């Protein structure tokens, strides 16, 4: 299986963010974060991580969870995790 690209991951994250933040039509970018995105609070953050893990079939380590700030961090981490799964 080919490795997933950051662009593809971002596209697939889009509906998850719309659902969790309950904002249909919301556009997320690599620089989206809880600072600049409405209703991205700490509880929504937990849901975003949980659903991203389930959607991509990956599990983040504790230290990785700690470093996730922007959507770009999440995208890159998922790309790395998926690459590890499909060498």
């Amino acid at each position, binding site marked *: 299986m080919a490795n997933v690209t950051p662009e593809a991951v971002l596209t697939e994250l889009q509906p998850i963010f719309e*659902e969790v933040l309950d904002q249909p039509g919301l556009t997320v970018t690599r620089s989206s974060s809880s600072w600049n995105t409405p209703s991205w609070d700490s*509880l929504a953050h*937990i*849901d975003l991580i*949980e659903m991203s893990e389930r959607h991509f079939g990956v*599990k*983040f380590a*504790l230290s990785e969870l*700690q470093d996730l700030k922007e959507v770009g961090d999440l995208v890159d981490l998922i790309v790395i995790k998926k690459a590890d799964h499909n060498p």
Partner: protein
Amino acid sequence: MLDLDFCSITDILMKRRGLRRQLSMESGLRDLRIAVLGGTTTDEFVNLLDLLLLANGFRPVFHQSEYGRFYEEAVHNAEILLNFKPDLVYVHTSCMNVHVPPLNCAESDLASHVQAECKRYREIWASLEANLNCQIIQNNFEMPPYTILGNLDAVASGGLSRFLGELNVAFAEEAARRPRLLLHDVHGLSARMGLKQWFDWERYFSYKILYTAEANLELARSLNAMIKAIYGKSRKVLVLDLDNTLWGGIIGDDGVDKIQIGRETPVSEAYTAFQEYCLALRDRGILLAVCSKNDEGIAKSGFEHPSSVLRLEHFSCFKANWEPKHENILAIAKEMNLGVDSFVFVDDNPAERALVAAQVPGIAVPDVGNDVSRFAGIIAQGRYFEAVSLSKEDVERAASYAHNQQRSAFEARFTNYGEYLDSLEMVAEIDTFQPVYLDRIVQLTNKTNQFNLTARRYTLAEMESALRNPQYMSLYGKLSDRFGDHGLISIVLGRKEPQALHIDLWLMSCRVLKRDMELAMLDAIAARALESGIERIYGYYVPTKKNGIVADFYPKLGFVPAASEDPSLAGGATVWALNLAHYSKRSKHINVRDYKHG
């Protein structure tokens, strides 16, 4: 619409908000104010419970305590709860919230540690009871994630497993005597799910959510069932199909002799187990009804099968006809004067399930599949019949009586083995081959290797002809005891000559070794032989790799060596003879229902 009782957590997480919006628009929802006093982060759990309650006719409003402040909010800051005016307070704590005794805790100090911890919770409950007019639900505790002492953790007075076990007993006693306190059995819930699927350490250290999303869904489903029970929304009736649901096969085609029920094959055992599950539900107050496409008389004959656990009198309503099932179910509801929203319908046929689910709004139709061994587990997963208390009427009949009898008998000690055998209250049924048992007879004959004197194999046709041929003495034996029914476990096939009986086959299932069942079989053989004017029995032992345990079977029964008259016997085979002239009964510990010589 998602089936929230059975769907995966992933499905719920992905659709929760849309579902919530949709469900909130329903009219006639009942307002319910719930305070959750948590020892860990409870938001995910509360969101799931919110959705489940909405789907069950409630409009919940939640208050969550500040993180970890379950004790303080209940005991010291009661005004928050007073202002919130909860209908229900759920104290949601975990093994992480327990004050544990030191590892070197002495056995004599353990009880006081349990009481000290229990006292902390008693303060919580007493304060809630005094200040609020609400129902209180308190969880008990899952076992710890790690056992510092390994297996000894469950034994040592300083072991956490031992401590939590005793604390759970103390909580159960408190719940039993406090009318407003209900216990949420997290211990059982977590065990059924498995602790490896229960704790989520990444989420615990990141957000102080102790549980996996799967575990939180189980918690929410279980609490939802309790809340429904508190408000009288538990279901009351189990409506059952017959063919391939309560027994294997089609009774109209196969006949009552051929349906699969009993202990004789794996499949029939599974149907028996499911009937026992249904009967256990009935014994605690759930009403049973039949809804089957069948001729009524033929359908009812299924419950006259000798191995049927369920009897006609166990059913409150019986509909077997050729009308569509949804119409029959509406008729059952009318006859029983109950709403279909208190019904659960179980049928192996997916088309019938789909029809009933679509045509009878409010009825629960779990997707039980078509494998009877899974029916009970799937029904249990639906949590339809949750009860908050058990009235005397609920537990009618002798169920508890029988249980107590069993216990008191086994508290006694036995001075010898015969006394032990007597205490088992064994009942045997011995008779000539019956058509209804032929499949089992052939199966047992061809798979029994150890307690099998000749290890001869027979086909179904051969056994059938032995049944009809008066030259053969064919006997089967069934055995049951106070702990249950072992089914058909012994077979003897003897060939009659004018002066002698040759035992070509004698075998017994190893599940009833050392029960003296062989003596009961010998009594039955002797009685029948004497009746035919035969005074000499010949037994044969043909050694195989596996039947060493019966090498001296015949001499132990008092047979003496005899000369072989059969040249086909070779390879160490031995021949034994018993003179019946002065035969007296050998079996002393089994109540034998010999259909001819009882």
